[in-house]
């Protein structure tokens, strides 16, 4: 949708106010907006609110095959949904440059800075690993989008617990949360993002700009730091001309903010853990809505007379079985050759019968020998099949045609008569083997 353009008068007033240190929401130039962080009743979900910006993040995990280049490392996937709900200028179902920048930055902060121990996400090297997926959805946009999204994602990752697994020789057992407690992710550090706006060729610094302010500023820089006083990412959102001293100053501001917010995140997670271990049902996201809003929860409950239900026994088996990987099976040699051989032989037999019928009376082959030759073909087929298995199981397999009373010598002349067909079929077989 079209966004109304920024008027000259708005821009002038905002710039003039910023230059004299005033802001429209009565904040100081170096003052952050209040951060509200809530974790949901389902593990691995969190909502972060900074002023009017609202972002929700949800984490889920599933078992997948690792890439061949990193067979013992888990995979973390980040997905961002930027819809017109957040800002009318966003396109529906398509990530514009802003969305791509957001995904790239979240990947940089969460994946490339190695804040999560991916090697602990490995179940079986080269075969099974945990694929952790972080879904970030922007609900409302009013500046400092990266800060909010990063905070929500980090909190959700801290809150998330993956199912517990045990390795059995041929398969993996995944336990539900009722059998074995789920395991939290191994997180080394928490990178916290700060958006710093720049004005007047970098002389002035505006912290946590709202969207209107950001449109009037010269540029902005995003710094991600963690509690260990390390800089995890340094990213310029827009074009800017700065001096290195100013960059260092921005980094220092971001550092103090990171320490404060890390404490907030830890507090929220600890409180939620306390509530859960006391078997208290967590409030979840309902505490984000103010109680003044009329909700159905305040109306008087109506009694519903439901018919009596027979409670059946709860299903005991809650274990999920992974399909086991059978060793020593080469699906290629068993499946395809057999199928093709059968088809080819059937086709040839069909053609043979057509030729016989059309020629009419010329006894190319008598039914007995054709039966025998068919049997011989079958024997050869079975030999081929067993060849494949022979190699691995190292057993001597001998095939014998059962029920044939004729000794091999009698069979041979018959075979010679049909040498042509046999040769054709064996030639075809050889061709297939090659």
């Amino acid at each position: 949708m079209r966004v109304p353009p920024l008027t000259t008068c708005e821009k002038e007033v905002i710039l003039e106010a910023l230059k004299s240190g005033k802001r429209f929401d009565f904040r100081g130039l170096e003052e952050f907006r209040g951060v509200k962080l809530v974790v949901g009743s389902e593990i691995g979900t969190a909502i972060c609110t900074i002023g009017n910006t609202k972002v929700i993040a949800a984490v889920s995990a599933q078992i997948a095959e690792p890439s061949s280049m990193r067979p013992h490392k888990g995979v973390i996937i980040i997905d961002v949904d930027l819809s017109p709900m957040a800002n009318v200028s966003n396109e529906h179902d398509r990530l514009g440059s802003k969305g791509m920048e957001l995904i790239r930055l979240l990947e940089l902060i969460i994946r490339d800075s190695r804040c999560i121990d991916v090697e602990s996400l490995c179940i079986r090297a080269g075969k099974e690993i945990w694929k952790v997926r972080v879904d970030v959805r922007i609900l409302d946009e009013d500046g400092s989008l990266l800060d909010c999204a990063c905070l929500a994602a980090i909190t959700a990752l801290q809150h998330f617990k993956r199912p517990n697994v045990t390795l059995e020789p041929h398969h993996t057992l995944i336990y539900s949360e009722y059998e074995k407690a789920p395991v939290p992710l191994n997180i080394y550090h928490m990178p916290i993002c700060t958006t710093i706006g720049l004005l007047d060729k970098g002389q002035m610094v505006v912290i946590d700009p709202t969207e209107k302010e950001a449109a009037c500023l010269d540029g902005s820089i995003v710094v991600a730091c963690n509690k260990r006083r390390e800089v995890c990412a340094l990213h310029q959102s827009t074009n800017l001309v700065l001096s290195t001293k100013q960059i260092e100053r921005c980094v220092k501001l971001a550092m103090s903010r990171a320490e404060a917010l890390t404490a907030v995140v830890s507090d929220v997670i600890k409180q939620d853990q306390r509530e859960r271990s006391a078997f208290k049902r967590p409030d979840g996201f309902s505490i984000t809505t103010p109680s003044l809003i009329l909700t159905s929860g305040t109306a008087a409950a109506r009694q519903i007379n439901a018919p009596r239900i027979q409670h059946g026994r709860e299903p005991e088996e809650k274990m999920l079985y992974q399909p086991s990987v059978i060793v020593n099976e080469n699906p290629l040699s068993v499946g395809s050759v057999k199928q093709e051989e059968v088809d080819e032989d059937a086709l040839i037999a069909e053609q043979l019968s057509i030729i016989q019928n059309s020629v009419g009376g010329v006894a190319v082959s008598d039914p007995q020998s054709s039966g025998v030759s068919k049997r011989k073909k079958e024997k050869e087929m079975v030999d081929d099949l067993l060849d494949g298995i022979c190699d691995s199981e190292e057993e001597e397999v001998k095939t014998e045609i059962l029920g044939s009373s004729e000794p091999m010598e009698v069979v041979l002349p018959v075979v010679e008569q049909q040498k042509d067909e046999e040769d054709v079929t064996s030639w075809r077989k050889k061709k297939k083997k090659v």
Partner: protein
Amino acid sequence: MAVYLPGDVINEPSSSDSSIIGYGINLRGEKKVVTQPGAFRSDEGKIWLSVHSKRYIPQEGDRVIAIVTSKTGDFFRLDIGTAEYAMISFTNFEGATKRNRPNLKTGDIIYATVFDTTPRTEAELTCVDDEKRARGMGQLNGGYMFKVSLNHCRRLINPSCEILQTMGKFFKFEITVGMNGRIWVNAPTTEEIIKIHDVINKSEFITGEDELISLVQHSYTRSVSG
């Protein structure tokens, strides 16, 4: 004060002799059926609903604040917050002739009247009345513009509303209210503009007079730099 929802039929005794059916009410046969949720209002034979909305639909005769987006040919292309752009011809300004063109750039704002809303064409505005006089319309210089909901705008310019008068006791300012939800404010200092903006935004949901006075006082004494 009754609140009606879409689909309700109005049976107010004061509405029985009304000759003008206004906003939010449709006539279906003999019945007056409500189409938009709102509070019922009546006045001297007119009945209408006061509806909360943010999106402006152009109506002839409305005075709106428009943003200039581009200059094409003999027209300015304007944004009035509707689905389509609106336009104003160069000649519809006071003192404009073929030689003397108005000096407007992209990003400037003007106060104009909607005078042509033919469907399937862009709305056309004018900055002069029938006698080619401006009457307060034209370019708005300096100041600050912001958006509120449409019903709040209508409430502000209602003569019986106390908000602007109460503010006038504390602040010295100049204000223009557009029917498309846009308000332009000018004050001597930036600090005052910020406070006035804050008061107008917060006063949307304040009804009592005491509350209003305390809000304005609080804003007046509050420091803007935090």
